[in-house]
């Protein structure tokens, strides 16, 4: 998919040194993911982190006592880049053409055996330690105490864009119509607060690549997949220490 503002021309595959570095990196990433490690990251199912980082498995729930603790699980291999989720999101949340709340990234490894390409949906990770919330001078962005969603109070936004710079996931953009920074709010304003159970992107996906649920509810698929150690589940950029709530797996 196209992203505005990126100069592709500078980095065409014709440059041989660029290509080999890219290929090597992509192939290595696929290989490492299969063996269960991730360059710059670790296997990050909550149970393993709970054992390592907290005194008891309950400690995580105590520190992040959101009810429901909204989170998303993404099956990378199921995404076919049909972009229905992008359309549904833009339509439901009035996202202008120059911006996006969620995107689909494409990773290619032409020399790999088997699967040579996959699509990775990305969005706001609603981190447990959100760097945007820490950095915002006016608390225009804040983490909802009840459900853990990182939300925007547009009227307070001064447009300094520190949150945009702080986000490890490029999840935020400045919305000229709202005159404030905008980002995914798990469709809280447009759907969840009106009683609907899923986000627009989850409902629109024909391949069940996105799963939305309550991380504190043992009956939810997100809980089950995150609290097991057989299938690899990971997060993007764990080294930033933000403790995201969007998990990735294949299956």
């Amino acid at each position, binding site marked *: 998919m196209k992203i505005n*503002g990126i100069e592709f021309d500078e980095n065409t595959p014709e440059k041989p040194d660029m290509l080999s570095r890219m290929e090597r*990196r992509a192939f290595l990433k696929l290989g490492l993911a299969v063996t269960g490690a991730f360059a710059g990251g670790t296997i990050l199912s909550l149970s393993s982190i709970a054992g390592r980082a907290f005194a008891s498995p309950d400690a995580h729930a105590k520190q992040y006592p959101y009810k429901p603790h909204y989170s998303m699980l993404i099956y990378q291999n199921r995404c076919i880049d049909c972009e229905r989720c992008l359309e549904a999101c833009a339509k439901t949340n009035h996202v202008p053409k120059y911006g996006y709340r969620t995107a689909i*990234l494409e990773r290619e490894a032409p020399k790999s055996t088997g699967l040579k390409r996959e699509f990775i949906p990305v969005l706001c990770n609603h981190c447990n330690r959100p760097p945007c919330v820490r950095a*915002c*001078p006016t608390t225009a962005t804040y983490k909802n105490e009840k459900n853990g969603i990182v939300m925007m109070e547009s009227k307070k936004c001064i447009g300094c864009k520190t949150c945009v*710079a702080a986000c490890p996931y490029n999840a935020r953009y*400045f919305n000229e119509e709202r005159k404030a920074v905008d980002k995914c709010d798990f469709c809280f304003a447009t759907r969840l607060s009106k009683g609907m159970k899923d986000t627009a992107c989850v409902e629109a996906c024909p391949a069940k690549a996105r799963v939305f649920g309550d991380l504190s509810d043992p009956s939810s698929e997100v809980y089950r997949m995150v609290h097991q150690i057989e299938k690899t589940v990971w997060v993007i950029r764990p080294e930033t220490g933000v403790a995201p709530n969007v998990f990735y797996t294949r299956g």
Partner: protein
Amino acid sequence: MAENNTKVTQAGSDIRMFWAWQSIVARLTGLGKTFYIWFGISAALLAAGLAAGMHAFFVGYGHIYNVTREVPWGILISTYVSFVVTSTGLCLVSSIGHVFGSREFMPIAKRSVYLSILTIMAGFLVMFFETENPVNMVVYNVLSPNFTSNIWWMGTLYGAYLFFMGIEFVCLQLERHKLATYAGFLGVISGIAAHSNLGAVFGMLTARPFWYGPYMPIYFIASAMMSGCAAIILFTWMASKINREPLEGTMLRAVDVTRQVGILMICVIMFFSAWKIIAGLVGGEAEREAFLALITGPYAFNFWAFEVLAGMVAPLVLYVMSRGTNLNMLVWGSISMIFGIFFMRYDLVVVGQIVPAQFEMGVNEYPGLLSYTPSAHEILVVLGGIGMVGTLFLLGEKIFAAHRVEEHAHEHESRPALEPVQQSE
């Protein structure tokens, strides 16, 4: 005691006469052509900047500036950093004199305080045209503060800093030297606190490995002192030209000691920068990519020609060789440093963002470095900020007649406080 009374009342009536309307007008008229030409150029730059900024304000910054969601901070942020860094540096270096008592630094004090106020106001002007909702800033910084936000601390502390520097300047004008010292001290404290928070705005973002670490707040303070020295030398020389007075005596000595502090700070910054780069080159992928962009990639010319050569090496060599007496070398060294430092800030802000957040994912959308070039509007706003410093400096030199009132400052050095007039009758 009666003698003191006469001196105090004499100074008092001098000051009243000085500030009479006719006296101010007299100081501004009948000046040389060069003065009016430079004033005209500065005013034109300021006007152009204001026009471009207001136009961008109404169109919407996002539609007209070249910043994007991936590179949200551009030349306006780096120019803001340049101005406030110079302001803090002016405050810190001049405080060595009139706050911490080193006599040799005292002659440059008042001009430095004035310039530190000007440069921070220019920084605020540039920031007004950068943040999308500047009015919200004033309202919600007060109503809805976030004490974990470096931006909040920086904004609040710079407000306090401007307040204290303003009080100090007024006190220096009124020759209330003891009060000026206290205000200056509070200005130094708030300046250091504000400035290190500005460094931490960048340094506490874990998402940006080029910036992240404890280094930024410390580097900003050292860098401020370096720029402050250059600014003091340059503006002192410019003032001597404006007032058609040779730069000599205690003023030249003050320039010399400023030069020595400048030499030390250049060495400190060179040391910091070298280790920052060496450590960055053995960092993670994204970090390495950023540092490589700076030293061998698209920003290599900026770095080696402007940052290193113009910003650090040439000033160091010129300052040392001048031995504190060769004005030509001192001035060119300062000009070179200020020019190079502008690019130091630009590279710092931009290179920190050109490695995309998703770089290590190895996706097609982010195969390499992002790019950013300033738009015409942004460049005009930058020139507007420079024009503001120019116009207010030129006006200030004449209105406040700094050199004349400096004489009174020296007279009163041995009596730092103006005692209340004692009625002995």
